[in-house]
């Protein structure tokens, strides 16, 4: 860990002012940032402690949605009765992530920004375009069991490791930010993350010093909600494949579908073609297979992660059966 200056902010406006210098980072739960700082993967020159900002509430809005403060810990969000009642997919995703201790500390805003668990990103002795742009990608041609099969580039095949953001993607969450100039911004989660392309170091559309203050969930979607996570241990492991699914069946047909995927891509993955293959159709294995085809049409394995492609297909079909069954 390189040394840093430390400033504790009491309100969001002070925080963004404090953070408006190069090399500054916000710290709240710190569970990922400190992890990476110890390894000098992250080397901020300044930490702005936002852990005491008044952003720890979950509020119901008039439109029936929820506004979640960026500092709400994962465990509180998962256990919130309103979330359990209306956004079960989110509770389930949160509970599938990390451990009890980590969920107690990790925050809603921070969890959106969790960085990849690529083995090579974590090891500063290896080439990694995300950590050190232009140095190369060691995961391509290396061991890549946990890495991406969708949305990759020749520069980076990292996966986004999160669970919560996958559910939020299926729920069409909106991320509310405060910018350094004091402006607020509303960013649909679908626009929040960036594909790696040739700049894998840039993972979101956040500007320097921009602070996530809230996440808004729209009014609860109709239909059944599930979160399925497949991993190498029964608990306390990152997803190989995960699916957040919300599907409504009416009059024997799929009326609406929202499906987001973890473990497959550099961001919580969602592909309109998957949903297009489903909506308006009567649930059937052929329809589910078409959805899987749509999801995986451009999938590309890199050796040790090849299995994710058939695995994702199997899990998607089984999940759709579950979502559309009695």
């Amino acid at each position: 860990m390189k040394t840093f200056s430390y400033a504790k902010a009491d309100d969001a406006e002070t925080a963004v002012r404090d953070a408006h210098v190069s090399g500054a980072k916000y710290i709240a739960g710190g569970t990922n940032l400190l992890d990476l700082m110890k390894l000098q993967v992250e080397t901020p020159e300044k930490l702005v402690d936002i852990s005491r900002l008044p952003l720890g509430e979950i509020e119901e809005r008039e439109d029936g949605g929820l506004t979640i403060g960026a500092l709400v810990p994962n465990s509180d969000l998962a256990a919130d009765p309103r979330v359990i009642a209306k956004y079960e997919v989110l509770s389930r995703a949160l509970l599938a992530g990390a451990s009890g201790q980590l969920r107690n500390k990790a925050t809603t805003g921070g969890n959106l920004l969790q960085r990849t668990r690529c083995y090579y990103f974590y090891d500063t002795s290896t080439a990694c375009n995300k950590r050190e742009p232009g140095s190369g990608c060691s995961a391509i041609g290396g061991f890549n069991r946990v890495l991406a099969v969708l949305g990759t580039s020749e520069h980076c095949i990292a996966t986004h490791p999160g669970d919560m953001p996958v559910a939020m993607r299926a729920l069409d969450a909106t991320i509310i930010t405060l910018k350094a100039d004091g402006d607020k911004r509303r960013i649909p989660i679908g626009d929040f993350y960036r594909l790696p392309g040739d700049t894998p170091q840039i993972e979101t559309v956040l500007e320097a010093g921009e602070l996530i203050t809230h996440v808004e969930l729209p009014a609860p979607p109709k239909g059944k909600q599930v979160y399925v996570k497949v991993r190498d241990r029964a608990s306390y492991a990152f997803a190989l494949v995960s699916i957040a699914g919300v599907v409504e069946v009416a009059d024997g047909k799929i009326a609406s579908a929202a499906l987001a995927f973890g473990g497959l891509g550099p961001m919580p993955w969602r592909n309109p073609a998957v949903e297009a293959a489903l909506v308006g159709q009567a649930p059937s294995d052929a329809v589910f297979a078409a959805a899987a085809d749509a999801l995986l049409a451009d999938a590309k394995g890199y050796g040790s992660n090849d299995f994710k492609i058939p695995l994702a297909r199997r899990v998607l079909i089984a999940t759709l059966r579950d979502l559309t069954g009695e």
Partner: protein
Amino acid sequence: MFGFGKGDTNSLTMNKAHPESLLDSSAQDVIGKPIDRIDGPKKVSGKATYAAEYALDNVAYGYLVRATVGAGKITKLDAETAKAMPGVIDVITDYATFLRNPQQGGETEAPTQGVEQVAYYGEIIAIVVAESYEAARDAALRLHVDYAPSEGRYDFQTHRNEAEKPSPQQIPPYHEQGDIEEGMKQAQHRIDVTYTTPSQNSAAMEPHASLAVWEDGALTLYGAYQMPASDKQQLAKSLGVSADKVRIVAAYVGGGFGSKLGIAPESVAAAIAAKRLGRPVKAVMARQQVFDATVRRSNTEQRMRLGADADGKLIAIGHETITSNLPGEDYFEPAGMATHFLYDGENRLITHDIVRLDWTLSGSMRAPGEAVGLIALEGAIDELAEEIGIDPIELRRRNEPEQDPEKKVPYSSRMLIPCLERGAERFGWAKRKPAGTDRRGDWLYGIGVASAARSNQLQKSAAKVSIDGQGKAHVETDMTDIGTGTYTILGQITAEILGLPIEDVIVHLGDTDAPPGAGSGGSWGAGSSGSSVYLACEALRGQIAKAMGVDEPSMTLKDGRVIADNRSVPLAELVGDGMEATGEIAPGRQEKTFNQASYGAHFAEVAVNVVTGEVRVKRMLGVFTAGRILNEKTARSQCLGGMTFGIGSALTEELVHDPRNGKVVNRDLGEYHVPVNADVPQLEVEFLHERDIQANPLHAKGLGEVGICGAAAAVGNAIYNATGVRVRDYPLTLDKLLDGLPVV
């Protein structure tokens, strides 16, 4: 043998059977009882002191620096820039003296030294010392090192055809008996399959740690070590000082599983730094460095051939293994160890070849040999049973040997079949269904069985036991308790023989100022160290009898009183200014004239998800025999631990080496998947009554490893029974099962 005076030494070499044991004739009735660990209250309250936790004044913090090439020579190391950083005291290099790799267990020589020519990625090449841990870590990670890289050997598959026969050593690498080819030809039923297992890491919860301090030319090293007596020799040789100038303290060790048998690179780095600085230096490996630079269990490739006649009697057993290690290292993973004696069969071929790779040193990890060897043997036995169409337990029954099939010596005791039968009865084995037929919703269920066997070893071990004026006994040996329960069982042996309440026995371990013990490894700790304590206590009984003025055999010791001759006298009144005796045990002819081993049977039930291939162990039972069980509670825990290691090696554990440079890729506990609580059901353990009079005066055999032996195979066999898919490439991760599962 009686009439010892104060300070007597009672020595025994196991050259003949020891049919009588004081543990049977004593009256305290504490031996074998499931008493709580005597060190427990300290452990649960955070008061047990591990190596890095001794409060010394003026400690400087060391952080180890790793090599970041797989092979090559260090050409430049920029110490000056690091030294200029705030808080940094020094960057210490001593290329010739630093350990290239750890030492193997029990060796009395230094391990391979010299780090300038880098032997593997992650080799420890320097130590940065600073006033704070944070400053040392920062400087170490930023230390700039240049290398002249060279070609390396990094891929097992690429080099497997260059495997060589290891040099002759304690464990003979080859055994050939009869004619395997002819045996296979004659066989009615044949299995010829290849199992593979990956590199693994012990991943003890306490990272390797050394806190070194020099005083008047003598080194005290508070270290996380399993075998202080030989570790002290290794350390002295490495540093070029005489052994009497080195003291190792390892009172509490946070797990070892083989990885702390020999000294590891941080010890010498800390010792050199402490000497140069003239102040104590603490060097704790980062978890990643534990993966990089301690020992791994070698990966294995094991060709298993089994040939049986029409009745299922084995006539051919072939177990040809290839493992890997660094150039110049003697150790090989003895994967065929249990195959030598587990089943009958006249034509036998057991070989161990080794591929030289520039990977992290391979060495001992819990049950070296059997733990991975039985994956292949017990998997193949299951396959043979399927091939013949008989029950796998019946197949084992038909191949139960009357004597060691190679050495032609009797077994000291062997209850493999009773373990299998008892387990089968308890586990509901008779209800096992044909492979792939028990589907419940999205899960396929199956059960599997495997034999457990682990050779019993006795090691030279010494202990001193004294009785103070209050009638309390003190046990002193440099033996360790790495979680094995040594504190408690040595206390129980002493309490039993001297007739004391367990509270009146104080056990001091892990300090090389005390008599040299066997150390913890190879499942020999309890039998060896326990016997030395037994012998010391036996001598003390003689002294007590003499003080009482009675014949030793007529004397009963119980609850702190000496009872004989119609008198009952408090022990404290007889000891005067104290009594003491030393006990020494040594292995002898009995290990040659008898085959000694612990046995068991594992039963596992798994559920395999038909969609994902995820495997969940639903139930697991281990039935074991290991001679006398010294403490039913700690013994059971040892088996739980072994069985869980088995679950890990069956399902999740794989240390991955990058084929481009040998680097350990998944070098943390997030990606090297040891089982978590949710991976492990409420395992059950049962011990069958047994005594082994050839083993030692305790009649106890090794227990720390038999629990892992065969455990992974039972899980693998259960997965086959669940799915009808036989995967031979461990661990059995879901990706390997997908192809064989029903279409979704």
